[in-house]
């Protein structure tokens, strides 16, 4: 606990220092870099220490300091697991941000931005360790507000302000549900402390109500479809390192909140598990389909976050259903899979956002159809993006595979241990997961292929510059974690199972070895064999090519003499067939303008997907609210005597009510 507190202290101290030094741009940036590294390392060691049982003082109470309630924070393995990913990712994203904003020439004060960044780390750590509902809600709100300011860094742009506004409104709406939920729980348990809340028993119906409130409240943050509408707007609007943090950490805090509720309440009716599965399937499949329809790389990545939240939710769902069916093994694997995927997604999505940021920095555009052939000019960024793509598709050798394997494993165990109804649910989820996997691979083949392979489609290609070491180092760190997590998965697996321990009655070690670690070792063995096969083939190729000739020619253009780079398959055309198959759920439309006549000009083609939840759910609701507000506008006359009259009127009403 001392480690964590000292890490938070470094954060807090650096905020004041940076604000004091705000006029010296360079100095405050270096203060940021130093304090970031110090606080993240301290926090990281604390989290790892808790997960390996080396740290034993786990709580810190400080009575009577905030109104009504005490300041009570504690770390359990679950918090520690999320702290781990918080500190790793904010370290990487922070260093990248330091490099990214170094040559920023705009009007914003970078020191303020950096101190807000530190403040965000601080309040997220508070959210993760708070053991008191009031403290939790205060930290939660702070987190929303601080991240709002970080997202709207480029607030001179109209769309950035819009996106930030949407983000603020959406998450506030979620917080409303959370306040209601914690209020109900507090009244029921007679205390706002999580410990006390966990002791009281909740009737199933009441637990269901709490669960729905939690899904609404935390789901907005996590980006469950259809509550996700802020997500694809906010990610492209934010600076790159903030998008990485949003996608890697912030939306995971929603998942953390949901899991925390599950540890407190304990027993839920079956439909809660089914609800989670349904959310997981819908978010996963629709998320990846929307991603396929995007033309802007950051937006594509943002929709992929929704897809991965779907996979995580599927893991949570099978965990909860296993718990309800009293199949603790299934439940344990499911929860651990969800946690592991949370971590892995934070790492590879952070990597992808950072390398996409480097691409955008070099090309000054996010449109994938204006890029191409960048692997030759941006080799580092390209290969790092490739590592991220392989990981996010869950392909073997990288960490994404291990967590997807574990999720599948949980469902297959479910197929063996559930009754017929449960088997049906598990099979539907397996089919959905398989579909998500295939579509994700297609989507990243599209993204990587369009951006880095082929030749440049841009009408005026410039000489692109690769970023320097400050930008590469955090990406290299994350890529290394991706590879390490895929080749030597044992450490992260045992951390994930340790993190999932608060949710089940099983203890990890003996069960872990048999069911998970041995197979994971076998996976490594098979991958090792694959690498050996590849090396042998490569050697054979080397030897055989010694005696043969190698020609280098232009790509064959079917005999056409004037091949241009605009004839390549674009990202949009690559995604078109699969979007045509699923055109109904994503309302995929292709519009073409064919001009006729002897001198045709101005032909064009555009394809788009439409977010159904925005059109069919949020737009009507907001329209209704707008209409209602307009109808009540006459109250706000802007004339002071009227307002005094309102106050008087209210006082009279209160007086009458009190007298009765």
């Amino acid at each position: 606990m001392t480690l964590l507190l000292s890490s938070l202290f470094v954060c807090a101290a650096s905020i004041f220092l940076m604000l004091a030094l705000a006029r010296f741009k360079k100095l405050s940036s270096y203060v940021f870099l130093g304090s970031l590294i110090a606080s993240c390392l301290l926090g990281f060691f604390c989290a790892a220490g808790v997960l390996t049982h080396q740290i034993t003082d786990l709580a810190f109470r400080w009575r009577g300091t905030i109104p009504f309630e005490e300041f009570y924070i504690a770390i359990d393995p679950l918090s520690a697991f999320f702290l781990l990913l918080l500190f790793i990712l904010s370290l990487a994203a922070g260093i990248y941000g330091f490099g990214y904003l170094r040559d920023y020439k705009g009007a914003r004060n970078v020191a303020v931005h950096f101190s807000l960044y530190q403040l965000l780390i601080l309040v997220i750590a508070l959210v993760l360790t708070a053991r008191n509902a009031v403290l939790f809600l205060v930290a939660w709100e702070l987190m929303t507000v601080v991240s709002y300011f970080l997202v709207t860094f480029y607030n001179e742009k109209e769309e950035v302000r819009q996106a930030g506004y949407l983000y603020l409104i959406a998450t506030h709406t979620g917080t409303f549900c959370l306040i209601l939920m914690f209020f109900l729980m507090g009244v029921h348990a007679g205390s706002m402390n999580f410990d006390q809340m966990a002791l009281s028993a909740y009737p199933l119906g009441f637990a269901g109500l709490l669960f729905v409130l939690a899904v609404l409240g935390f789901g907005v943050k996590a980006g469950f479809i259809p509550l996700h509408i802020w997500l694809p707007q906010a990610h492209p609007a934010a600076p790159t390192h903030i998008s990485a943090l949003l996608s890697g950490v912030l939306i995971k805090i929603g998942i953390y909140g949901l899991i925390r509720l599950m540890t407190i309440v304990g027993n839920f009716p079956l439909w809660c598990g089914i609800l989670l599965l349904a959310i997981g399937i819908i978010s996963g499949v629709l998320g990846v389909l929307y991603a396929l329809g995007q033309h802007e790389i950051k937006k594509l990545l943002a929709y992929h976050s929704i897809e991965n939240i779907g996979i995580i939710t599927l893991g949570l769902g099978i965990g909860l259903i296993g718990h309800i069916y009293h199949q603790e093994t299934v439940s344990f694997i499911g929860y651990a899979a969800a946690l592991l995927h949370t971590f892995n997604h934070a790492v590879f999505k952070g990597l992808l956002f950072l390398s996409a940021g480097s691409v955008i920095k070099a090309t000054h555009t996010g449109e994938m159809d204006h890029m191409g052939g960048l692997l030759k000019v941006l080799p580092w960024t390209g290969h790092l993006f490739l590592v991220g793509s392989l990981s996010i598709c869950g392909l073997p050798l990288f960490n994404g595979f291990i967590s997807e394997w574990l999720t599948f494993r949980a469902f297959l165990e479910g197929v063996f241990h559930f009754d017929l109804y449960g088997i049906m649910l598990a099979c539907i989820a397996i089919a959905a997961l398989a579909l998500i996997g295939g579509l994700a691979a297609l989507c990243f083949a599209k993204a990587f292929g369009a951006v880095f392979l082929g030749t440049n489609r841009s009408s005026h290609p410039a000489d692109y510059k690769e970023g320097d070491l400050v930008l590469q180092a955090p990406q290299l760190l994350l890529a290394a974690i991706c590879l390490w997590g895929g080749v030597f998965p044992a450490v992260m697996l045992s951390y994930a199972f340790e993190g999932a321990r608060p949710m089940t009655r099983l203890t990890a070690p003996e069960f872990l070895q048999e069911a998970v670690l041995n197979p994971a070792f076998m996976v490594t063995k098979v991958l090792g064999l694959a690498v050996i096969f590849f090396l042998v083939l490569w050697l054979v190729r080397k030897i055989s090519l010694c005696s043969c000739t190698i020609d280098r020619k232009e790509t064959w253009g079917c005999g056409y003499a004037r091949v241009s780079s605009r004839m390549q398959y674009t990202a949009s055309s690559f995604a078109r067939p699969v979007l045509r198959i699923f055109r109904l759920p994503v309302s995929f439309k292709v519009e073409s303008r064919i001009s006729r006549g002897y001198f045709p000009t101005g032909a064009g083609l555009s394809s788009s997907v439409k977010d159904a939840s925005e059109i069919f759910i949020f737009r009507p609701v907001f329209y209704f609210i707008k209409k209602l507000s307009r109808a009540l506008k006459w109250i706000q006359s802007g004339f002071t005597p009227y307002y005094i009259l309102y106050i008087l009127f209210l006082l009279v009403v209160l007086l009458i009510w009190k007298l009765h």
Partner: protein
Amino acid sequence: MSSLILHLGILLAFPPLLLGVITKTKAFFAGRRGAPLCQPYYDIFKLMRKGSVYSVTSNWIFRLGPLISTAVILAAGIVLPIAVFKAPVQFGGDIILFIYLLGLARFFMVLAALDTGSSFEGMGACREATFSCLSEITIFLNLTILALLSRGLSLSGIFLGGLASSWMQVGPVLILVAASFFLVLLSENSRIPVDDPETHLELTMIHEVMVLDHSGMELGCILYTQALKLFLFGSMLVSMVLGLMPRNVWGQGLYFILGILGLGVVIGVVESAMARLRLNRVLYLLYSALIFSIFALIVILVRGHV
């Protein structure tokens, strides 16, 4: 170690023969004498000795992609039992690894195609990725059903002995799964009616147009990988249909060899008797494979036999 070498030996030696059998069958139906059975071997060896032509657009992905995909599919073969031989590496959940390894191989082939910057290859890559999305669901569902019937999470458990008793109890389920599996086999290995490697028009192809620009050793690798993948799918299908047991090695082994040659003949007959489907019809084929396996699942759930 010895089992690994034996397994690798089978995987390296046997698959091209399957292609030879298919070609021979097709030649028989066309009334020709056809290429010798061993022609695929000659082709692979010939290509291995040839030089390559690379596009100036391409990177290492184009050059090494086929090699990676060969290595990965060979590794996938390591977790699959073949005939009466258990897989050298087996563990609970290797089903998932197997499918994902196929996915990894495909991912690199798709990237290698996009690496050329040719619109033909982009088209092929796009089709391959699209159709495989749908067939992947079917493979997963089929394997889940088989796992459920044999109560094992490892491929060796499922295909060696796990299904022998199921034929008596839930035969119809296995027939449905086999039918669905056969359709997936055709589409995943780019056979007629999904894809026709021998057509003269690139616009209508799927897999073949994706590998249009490869040459020399890479093309040899691609040819071998195609045969290997067909062999792996075929061996799953044959093991399932015959319900092999790990005892009575010689008899069962003979059954297996006859089965897989028979499969080659069946594929040849299908290829001779059918024309290639139009591209948008391919989807219906994949849908029907999916529906077969959903029906199989429903039969299991209704009978309550688990």
